């Protein structure tokens, strides 16, 4: 029975992974990843990791994938058209792709040799004996005790990492003056320290001279030279 469930779930896992890689539309890729994650949770259940399986379905397939779907719906349309435009562009793209698939094949062969060739003698078993009970291996109580005693530092660092990531995402994706409006002003330290109306090239190009000083400057230019002389001497 467990063998049947294993093969069904493994086929789901691998088919989902192939779907993520092969499907053209990013939206369908996300949906394939959701099916992949749910099948993977079944594999975790077979490995007696109940809590991790529940977290996988609820947090990963539930929350993170919803984030993906939102971003794909926000961005996806233009991405598809750009991809189509590039796809017909050159044959170098196709050559790169075959090279990448060959590299992936080598990687798979290497991993399988490493796992099945040499490792099989060590890992040929069916795992440690499992006794059911309230606080046995894999239950939330067991995981919680481990997280809050032995792995407390890792737990705290992970929570801090989540905080940093949340702040970083807000900083990265915040709206800077809206879409389609003028770009944000380019401010350098010179704009702060340099007095206005000193006749630099930036003022001439960008028109940064304030109106009052500009008028004063023009008036001073049109005055007769005799009136300006005392100031110059002084």
């Amino acid at each position, binding site marked *: 029975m467990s*063998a049947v469930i294993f093969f069904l779930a493994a086929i789901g*896992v*691998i088919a989902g992974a*192939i779907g*993520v*890689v092969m499907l053209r539309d*990013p939206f369908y*890729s*996300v949906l394939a*990843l959701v099916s*992949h994650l749910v099948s*993977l949770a079944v*594999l975790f259940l*077979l*490995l007696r*990791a109940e809590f*991790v399986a529940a*977290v996988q379905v609820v947090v*990963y397939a539930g929350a*993170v994938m919803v*984030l*993906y779907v939102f*971003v794909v719906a926000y*961005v*996806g349309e233009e*991405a598809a058209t*750009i*991809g189509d435009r590039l796809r017909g562009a050159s044959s170098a793209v196709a050559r790169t792709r075959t090279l*990448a*698939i060959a590299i*992936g094949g080598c*990687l798979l062969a290497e*991993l*399988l040799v490493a*796992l*099945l060739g040499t*490792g099989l003698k060590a*890992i*040929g078993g*069916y*795992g*440690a004996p*499992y006794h059911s009970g309230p606080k046995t*291996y894999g239950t939330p109580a*067991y*995981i919680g005790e*481990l*997280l809050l005693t*032995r*792995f407390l530092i890792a737990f705290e660092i*992970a929570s801090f*990492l989540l905080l940093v*990531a*949340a702040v*970083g*995402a807000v900083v*990265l*994706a915040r*709206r*800077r003056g809206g879409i389609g409006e003028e770009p944000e002003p380019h401010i350098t330290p010179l704009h702060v320290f340099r007095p206005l109306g000193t006749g630099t090239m930036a003022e001439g190009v960008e028109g940064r001279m304030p109106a009052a000083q500009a008028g004063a400057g023009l008036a001073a230019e049109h005055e007769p030279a005799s009136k300006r002389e005392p100031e110059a001497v002084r």
Partner: protein
Amino acid sequence: MSIAWYLAVSAIVFTLGAVGVLTRRNPLVILLCLELMLNGANLALIAFSRMWGNGDGQIFAIVVMTVAACEVCIGLGMIVAIYRRRLPIDADELRELHG
């Protein structure tokens, strides 16, 4: 089922993710394929954890999931920022990360 079967599935999933990262150009799909690679690693961790009857591997898997969530958070934030600047959403054209 023997633990080796789970490790074979994990290797296949990891390789598929690596192929996806190498072949796809849409940063969104590259992020999805990174998730695949992390999931392959998770499956191996949990299989070894089951093999030894020791919960440490499961804690590792949970921490990997946390890191994956952070990575998704930052990656999607970057993609939204790229989209806002009307740059092409294509990993080949986004070679440089200057402003």
